């Protein structure tokens, strides 16, 4: 099984440890992983701001980089969803449509394609799980509280395979953190308030770490936590599932 690893731009630049953990985890599970060096971004920052017409360059790069792989895997629900819903190419639309079908966010790839049942990892901490909106409501990684339907959660299934993890209950288990791409600066007041409220829910419920399948939300909440000088840390779910070691970078 040849998997193309898509590391979104801001993960590449700011959170290499999450990317390394994703790579190592997939390798440990016997997956042959390729990382196309010429990758940049899924194009979402422009598209969500109304400039989808400026994403042609990103789209063409993405298709060139990933068309050859059997699967594409990314440690970001939001970027994965964007590719799934909006990837096009002027050269060979079938290639783009193919990628849209074979791209997976990391946790769903582990539960649905690799169908893993155990993990060799331990993380003896109280963890608050942030359900990132695009992963949850877009990719349906977990059931949504709005719907009348049976509960399930792919990230929780995986966290339960890690020794020592205690998932803390939240008052609002699937409320948005307020990041929203350029929303975080264009609507600064509401965005920051949403972030503060989300972080407070985790703190009140005794979380030592906040984890998620999306670093954009974690980056937002980390910004708030650090301003508050809170001891609570953020950590990408790949790092917990891979077994956290000393910081590599």
């Amino acid at each position, binding site marked *: 099984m040849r998997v193309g690893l898509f590391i979104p731009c801001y993960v590449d630049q700011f959170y290499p440890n999450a990317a390394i953990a994703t790579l190592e985890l997939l390798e440990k599970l016997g997956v042959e992983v390729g990382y196309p060096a010429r990758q940049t971004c899924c194009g979402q920052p422009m598209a969500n701001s*109304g400039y989808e017409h400026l994403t042609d360059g990103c789209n063409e790069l993405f298709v060139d980089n990933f068309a050859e792989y059997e699967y594409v895997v990314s440690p970001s629900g939001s970027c994965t969803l964007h590719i799934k819903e909006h990837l096009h190419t002027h050269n060979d639309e079938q290639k783009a449509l193919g990628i849209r079908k074979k791209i997976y966010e990391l946790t769903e790839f582990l539960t649905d394609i690799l169908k893993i049942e155990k993990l060799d990892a331990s993380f003896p901490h109280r963890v608050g799980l942030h359900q990132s*909106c695009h992963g949850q409501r877009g990719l349906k990684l977990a059931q949504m509280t*709005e719907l009348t339907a049976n509960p399930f959660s792919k990230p929780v299934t995986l966290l339960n395979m890690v020794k020592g993890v205690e998932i803390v209950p939240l008052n609002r288990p699937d409320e948005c953190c307020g990041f929203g791409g350029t929303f975080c600066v264009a609507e600064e007041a509401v965005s920051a308030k949403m972030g503060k409220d989300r972080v407070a829910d985790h703190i009140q419920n005794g979380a030592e770490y906040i984890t998620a399948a999306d670093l954009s939300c974690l980056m937002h909440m980390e910004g708030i936590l650090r*301003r508050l000088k809170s001891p609570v840390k953020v950590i990408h779910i790949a790092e917990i599932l891979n077994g956290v070691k000393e910081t590599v970078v």
Partner: protein
Amino acid sequence: MKDHAALSEAFNKDEQRVNWHDETLWWVRQKRDKASHQIPDWEELREAASQIKHNVLSDLGNYLEQFEKQAINNGISVHWAADAKEHNDIVHGILKRHGITQMVKSKSMLTEECHLNHFLEEQGINVVDSDLGELIVQLAKEPPSHIVLPCIHKKKEEIGDIFHEHLGSEKGESDPQILTETARIHLRNTFLTRRAALTGVNFAVAETGEFVVCTNEGNADMGAHLSDVHIASMGIEKLIPQRKHLSVFLRLLTRSATGQPITTYSSHFKRPRPGQEMHIVLVDNGRSIQLGREDFRNSLKCIRCGACMNTCPVYRRSGGHSYHTAVAGPIGSILAPNLDMKQYADLPFASTLCGSCTNVCPVKIDIHDQLYKWRQVIIKEGYGDKKKATAMQAMAYTLSSPKVYRIAGKAGRLVMKYAPFAVNNSLNPWYKQRDMPEPPKESFGEWYKKNRS
């Protein structure tokens, strides 16, 4: 004219109040969850409602003519209004013909959309809103901030002050029961003396020519039954084909809105009583244009339950007035640009696209997808912020070239590492309430080159 970001920044000056507003509406969302989760086939019910409305919108012209014919047969006068002005003129014309200068009005978001109260006041006609929440905002000279809960932005102490000033309640009185009694006595006299009553319409049945008005206070009934002239204003999208379809919509409406199983009053109006005149004003006001926009057509399925507002984390923390339009929140943000793309260019951006609105919508409008699509339309039509366009072009240029991207990434991390003041300053809106991420010494791409290739 201030935009949503500026208005919500002002709203956020008082954080305790934001907390109160957020928690009040979250409580309504929770009541909605409790009510909907008790119906095992809730999701099928939503799908049925969505399909029925789909059918209506796909044949709206014929349904409207069928409704008109039945209504006329029932003895109702039917009027057609192309826009808000025509609607207001029609209502004024009816009142003038009867020499009526005072009217009682129950809840109607359409009349808010048409600014009817303001128009009639200019013509010397006094209008009293009989819905308690509407009455409160009318006395406060404010627009409603929520389509179902018009004065949800007001605390009971503030309502006490308004009633003290206008209705003569005791100074400092804030007991909801006493304040409600005060309003009731005031309204009782209004009901008894007004010859004309205007109501909204929740559903109009094409098959029978009747219309249904849903209220909790019975104020629409009281007004209509005591009046010589009953005027009902309705948007043309309010139709349903048959009476039996109410069994779907009445189950969904109030569970979605407030978590009640059904409104206290679901009143059917079919024909005027002897001696009474009954009028229906069918209002387009942009709806035909929206019907022609394929991407946004579904927004006309809306039954005005307000569930998308209650669940919206942005609405709860910015207040209804920050949307500067009659219908606030997520649904308002996809309806308003159809009426005036320039004036409401900010609204589709007042969202994180979290998608909760779409999940609670009882008629399954793809609200957050439409917000995304409106953003594309607004930018293409040239109503976007020019400074942002330059930044977006620079970003697209950088991200389209792996080489430029790597250089820019490295430079960016260097700046953050050695000159944090360049990014950690008050000109950077991120930094006002949030710290920047700690820059790592190398990117994943750089690490990968060293360790894997």
